[in-house]
């Protein structure tokens, strides 16, 4: 059984946020929820400044604090290492949100709306749907793909489980114009991700908490105190 993970090459990222949009379209997530989030930072003072980018999906930790914190088992780790959410079991305790140091859990306070990808006024626009988001996946046969499913539940990046089960890359990795996001089997020494990790210096975000994230960053530096976020998503 593979162990899926991601390797993000910061030296190739242009911070364009195509991955954020591709994620929204692929997963039909509600407004303001960005399962993949690309931060843009400015570092230093004029004229010794640098602009840096940091794409942040769910880390799909090997030791996921969210799974431990979940009171109902709605958050669970699949056999292939994907950390998934069963929205039908989720009671909205938001413990996962509190436990996760990465801020990747999004709670649907209201009935999901503003899902611009699929939610249109059907009196104007003929209805259409992505059937891949509505069928069960995995050993568990649970509907763990896609977002915007119900009020009062938590949703987050699934590593595009519905694509991965069909052998396709997650939407963010597939769309990336500069091929900065790599996805594959971390246990297979011949996989692209394993090779990249073997030949590059890498780090993981907040690894010190013992979460063992399966998202690795290469050819760059982690954000540090003093860096200023610019062009924040959502703006002013």
């Amino acid at each position, binding site marked *: 059984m593979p162990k899926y993970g991601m390797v993000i090459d910061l030296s190739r990222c242009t911070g364009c946020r195509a991955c954020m*949009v591709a994620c*929204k379209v692929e997963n039909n997530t509600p407004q303001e929820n960005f399962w993949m989030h690309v931060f843009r930072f*400015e570092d230093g003072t004029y004229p010794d*400044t640098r602009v840096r980018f940091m794409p942040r999906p769910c880390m799909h930790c090997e030791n996921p604090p969210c799974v431990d914190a979940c009171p109902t088992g709605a958050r669970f780790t699949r056999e292939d290492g994907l950390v998934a959410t069963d929205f039908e079991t989720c009671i909205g305790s938001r413990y996962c949100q509190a436990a996760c140091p990465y801020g990747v859990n999004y709670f649907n306070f209201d009935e999901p709306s503003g899902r611009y990808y699929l939610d*249109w006024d059907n009196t104007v626009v003929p209805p259409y749907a992505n059937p891949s988001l509505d069928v069960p996946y995995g050993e568990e046969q649970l509907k763990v793909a896609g977002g915007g499913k119900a009020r009062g539940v938590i949703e987050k990046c699934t590593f595009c489980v519905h694509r991965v*089960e069909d052998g396709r890359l997650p939407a963010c990795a597939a769309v990336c114009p500069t*091929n900065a996001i790599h996805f594959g089997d971390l246990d297979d020494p011949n996989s692209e991700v394993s090779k990249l990790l073997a030949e590059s210096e890498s780090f993981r975000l907040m690894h010190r908490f013992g979460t063992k994230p399966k998202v690795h960053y290469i050819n760059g530096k982690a954000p540090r105190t003093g860096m200023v976020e610019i*062009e924040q998503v*959502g*703006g002013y």
Partner: protein
Amino acid sequence: MVVTRRDFLKSSITVGGGALANSFLFGGLETLVKADPLRLAAIDEKWIPTTCWIGKQDCGMLARVIDGRVIGYEGNPAHPRNRGTLCPKGVAQITSLYDPNRVHGPLVRTNEKGVSGTWRQISWDEALELVGSRMAEVIAKDPGRLIWQKGRSKAKSFYDKAFVKTAGATKLHHGAFCSDAGYRALEYTVGMHAVLSPDFRYTDRIISWGWNVTSGGGNKMCWLTWPQELVDAKERGVQMVSIDPRQRSAAHFADEWMPIRPGTDLALALALCNVLIDSDTIDREYLSKYTNSPFLVQGNGFFLRAEPDGDDDEGKPLVWDQASNSAQPWDADGVESALEGEFTVDGAAVKPSFQLFKEHVADKTPAWAAEITGLPASQIAQLGQMISDHANIGGTIEIDGMTLPYRPVGIMAYHMAQQELGFQALRGMLMVAMLIGSMGAVGGTLSDFTWKVHKNWKGLDNISITDSPNLYLNKSAFWPINSNNSSLVAKVVVDPEKYGVAPKELPEMVLLHHVNPLGSFPDRDANVKAYETFNFVVAIDPWLSLTADLYADVVLPAATIEKYEGPMSAGTMYEDAKAMRVPPMKPMFDSRGDIDIYLDLTEAAGLLYDEGGYLDRLNSELKLKDTFALPLDVKPTAREILDRWSLSQDLDGGIEFFEQGEAIQYKGELSAAKRYGYATDPPFGGAYPHRFYGESLLGYQLEMKDLGVDKIYWQDYTPFPIWRDLTLESSPSEFDLYMTSYHMIEFKQSRTLSPLVRELSPTMFMEINTDTAQALGIADGDEVKVESQNALTGETRSITTRASLRQGIRPDTVAMPHHYGDFTVHPWVTGRGPTPNSLFFTGEGYVTNTADQTYLVKVRVEKA
């Protein structure tokens, strides 16, 4: 290839489905855990190859279609420009397709113009009759008074060529805003119709001049390809210098940032020439053989010429032959031309133009340029040294079996051309490249994808200046070299007498095709005034643009991606391909494909059939072979025309080649023989000697003076680029900041109407240096009033926006993203804040030489 999952399941990965299915349906992921065949079989999906509709590079896409509806797009790996990926706009355009705010059917205005429109939806028949009859009337009177303008042009054969010729319309360019001064400088100097790109795959050092390389798309491309080339080059170890007032432009990839004062690029270029000449980093072979730098210049500034041979000959320019110690025709056999020195021919002192240039830049030292550009002299000298260190003069490389000059320092420049001295700044930058022989060399500075000479190589050298110019002042005494700027047209319309334009030249009817002059073009005031005068305005557009809302009489709803359109180039600097837009579904609402609309319109105006009609023009513009030519008495569909074109190109299956294939005709890698100027036969496509010295510019200057135009028009028509203070520097001192604008990918094209993109960056803002802002009492996110001032007329304009405090911008500069703001009537755009286009000025004082547009003005900023 239209592949269904069921088809795929019947075949294996390696056969039948082919590469497309391999990469897309099941591709990418190396280790597949389980693909539930029942689930896969249950989803009845198709992947229809098509072509992105938004930007200028027409990326390849695969539309995932379920039950006849597109539900998403992925990049097409067969397309050389995007290699299986998409940009944020490309992905987000799914919302444009289904946007309920599109124009649902033909609209006719029911209220007065100049205010937001009220509309009555009418049938296509009624709309076509209305527009067609009006068009026929205007054409019968004077076709030139029908103005046709298109935004980002696709399938030019159908629109820009066949339609414009059939109607005899006056064509306005899509803007003359993004880089036209650069195009003109390249056409004039080296004959290429493009600006500057480094030879990414062979260069060692990239000079990224302006913000295009990672944020703007730049030369020939809309966005995606250049960042791809850049990151690959960086991975090879290439280093890059970024010359831009803003760090955000290409900073992530720059090894050195040079925050130049906006509009002073020419001074920097001259200083780099000074350093190169000082260190004798000169490619004498190139300069002597392929440029006019050895031509002997007389005291009056014109070349010394041999006796004319016949009436049409002006006499060959002479060079000083060092072998015979005499003046000889520049192309005489065995001539050894001198680049330096002073010589006496028939008692008159003459100098090679290179000698004059050497004298011209002798005092343009890094210290001199430091004062002007605001860059440290040491940094300028260091850049010059870097160019010198990597110029590799005399070095060659073996490529595709040819031995070619290898000069691995390349310049990227595009949008920065739009500044007052843009034409001459680009000439100055070309001189940097020419001194080291890197124009058209391997690893050096390239321009268009292939070394194809443009007609302006000759045209711009032989302009007959007219004192009765047309609507866009082509060949006028004001801007003899002309870029067809529709904001300037607006000024002409408002005051034709000032420019000697006869009333009969003024527009009667305007046909706008996917173009929104009031929203997209700077100097909105001038455009509004012009639109007040137009009698009949028709917009072909999926949305109600600001221009249409205020001034259209009729709006014809165009489809977005759901139409046939093509053929379009899909090539890059390294590969050649043609793409086709194949409709992944039927047109939404009551919209029609653009080609179908032109067929309908020309039919309604009585211009479709018979000799000289639209069909006849299409036969010639599409170069349809006789066997496949369109009959001149039958109205075809867009698909039928493109089928004939495909058959004419010997593509098996005609249009099905694209429909059933990958919507692309891949023609393979471009050979070095096409890409490099030195590799063509004859070299540089025969367009040489390159105009190192712009003799004809001097000629134009004298004619302009003779025709009595003011100095402001002729002062920059000089053989060598001469730095002078920008006109905007005479704005009063309280206008103490430079305002410039830039592209931001989220909003780069106005066709990116998408709430998905708006969600990323909902409102307009202005970058301002943190220290500058603090001195003005402005905090991050504060509302600020920005007021610009026209240095010549004293007119002021202002907008209110939000301050975004940055370290990475010059303290004397503020900047806003452009083509952004309230450019159309749409809930996803309303409230987004004003566009900086409202602050810029067009024309005198803001653009010289080429009649295009400056994105630079002095402003003052205060907390609102």
